[in-house]
């Protein structure tokens, strides 16, 4: 599941179009757009609004395997034409500084992307160049710190990302909506590559059981009407079996067809199932 939080509609519009998202009319507090395994919300400007929208989106959507990204425009602390940064450059943020509290936050950078990285400082009101001298070199926005803090309540830091496109060099001015939309639109191809990285990150875990194994175990749990403790024991036994045998789970279809009528009968089947999963491998011993 890929989730997006953008502050402004012009920032969100290219993503909505690219992924052909449709408005979720059931979401009344904030606009949410969805299709398949992608969802997006538009938060409004500011870190508090961003935190609220992030929480809204994550709690509305199943979160276990999601990655969430804050996408939007930001100002650069570099003076125009004095360094490598240009309008339209896109950055992956490796450090977020909350100017008000001076706290810092770190998305995990685990997989390669072709984006440059930088620090983003989140401020509470638009900065001009004079103010900008007091923040860390990099970018300045008004949402990232709120977004990250909310997302980090639910998700691990490698599945929280922040992508910023340079819109200005800290000159206070009003942006034309179409111009902002075009700025994001122009980077959609690069962004797509980064999003694939995050999509891939949502699939990684250390569980030796595959999704299909969990589905089979769930069917067995339901059929045998296992308690929570028994269910945990079953999952553990299944993991152990997979690791010891270095194969997938044995045929469990026999247990799916059972219909125990009493708790004792269910317990007997469960014990037999655990015995099956405890079978030592026929392979030679470890040593």
């Amino acid at each position, binding site marked *: 599941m890929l989730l997006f939080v953008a502050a402004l509609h012009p920032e969100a519009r290219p993503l909505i179009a690219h992924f052909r998202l449709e408005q979720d009319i059931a979401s009344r507090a904030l606009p949410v757009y969805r299709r398949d395994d992608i969802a997006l919300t538009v938060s409004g400007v500011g870190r508090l609004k961003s935190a609220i929208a992030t929480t809204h989106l994550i709690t509305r959507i199943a979160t276990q395997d999601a990655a969430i990204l804050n996408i939007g425009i930001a100002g650069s602390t570099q003076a125009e034409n004095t360094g490598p940064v240009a309008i339209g450059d896109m950055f992956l943020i490796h450090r977020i500084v909350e100017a008000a509290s001076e706290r810092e936050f770190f998305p995990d*950078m685990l997989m390669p992307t072709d984006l440059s990285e930088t620090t983003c400082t989140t401020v509470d009101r638009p900065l001009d160049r004079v103010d900008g001298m007091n923040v860390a070199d990099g970018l300045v926005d008004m949402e990232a710190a709120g977004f990250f803090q909310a997302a980090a309540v639910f998700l691990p830091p490698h599945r929280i990302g922040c992508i910023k496109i340079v819109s200005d060099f800290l000159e206070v001015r009003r942006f034309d909506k179409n111009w902002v939309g075009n700025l994001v639109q122009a980077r959609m191809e690069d962004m797509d590559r980064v999003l694939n990285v995050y999509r891939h990150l949502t699939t*990684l875990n250390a569980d030796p059981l595959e999704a299909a194994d969990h589905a089979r175990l769930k069917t067995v749990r339901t059929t045998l009407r296992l308690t929570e403790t028994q269910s945990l024991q079953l999952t553990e036994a299944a993991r152990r079996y997979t690791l010891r045998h270095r194969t997938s789970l044995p045929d469990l279809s026999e247990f799916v067809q059972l219909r125990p009528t009493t708790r004792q009968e269910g317990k007997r089947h469960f014990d037999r199932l655990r015995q099956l999963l405890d079978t030592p491998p026929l392979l030679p011993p470890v040593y």
Partner: protein
Amino acid sequence: MTGSANFSTLPHFSHLYIEEEAFAYPLAQRLIDRFPNAEIVRITGYRGIFTRPKQDFPLQKHSMKLIAAVKKDRFLYPGSGHSQGFGMENFFYSTPILNCVYNCDYCYLQGMYPSGNLVVFVNEEDFFAAARQTLAERVNPAQPLYLCLSYDTDLLAFERILPYCRSWIEFARRTPDLLIELRTKSAAYRSIADIQVSERVILAWTLSPAQTATRYEHGAPPSRRRIEAIRQAVTDGWPVRLCFDPVIDLPGWQRAYETLIDDVFARIDPMSVRDVTFGVFRMTASYFDRMKRRRPDTDLVYEPYERIDETVACPAERRQAIRDFMTERLCRYVPEERIAAWA
């Protein structure tokens, strides 16, 4: 790691997170020089990144980052009950680095730290000052200060990046009544081979049968390379400790450890080894519980262990079997008084 088709991570140490204050120290500069292509991120405090909630330890071990920090306090800790103190009353350990470049399935680090990244403390002189102070205030002045430096990490494995072993060996040489232990699985003895031998330094190598090492000691060199490193260290005259710890009693373990012990002492004169330790799998219960959640992919977490107070360990009869077997086999080469056990 499931879902790992086409799974490619950034290389280890692709990012150096360096505290503002740490930039002033030569070790931080050395890191920057050592990894010229790394992304350098200035940070205010190492805990802000190291102790974040919900970090994915196993995934981070595929792309470890370095965090350079200045340690402010608690430079030395009293020795843990899970370690062998060898009857030393002034038993302490210290942590110049938090976390290890290796990733051994049975290691308590799997459940101890919230992160798979490494913190390196760059203010060595403060550690030395703390060691001098603890030495001066030690409980039993008749015994040296026994200081283990490589428990929560592997310093020798890191020596080519930052030369902590060299610094500590030199410090021990000029500090009477100090005895340090540098425990390792590394074969990188060459990186300290030019240093003059000191009786105040014990080089301790952890050894496992080849199959155990391959299966559980991810990133560590094979046992035969460790044995060769030990042979060179012994030949050079270093006090060397051999650690068969933990003994993993999977099917066929007796044969595997018998072969390992015979191999080791076929290449290394037992009389030139300072002492030998062995121990069973044991871990603080809370670390084990966390490890079990984090590492469902290692069969070690599904063994039927026993909880004794706050420790998870092999059941009593397995501990006894390991103690009896290892003592008997080791005594063929080394007098019993030079063998210490946690079993």
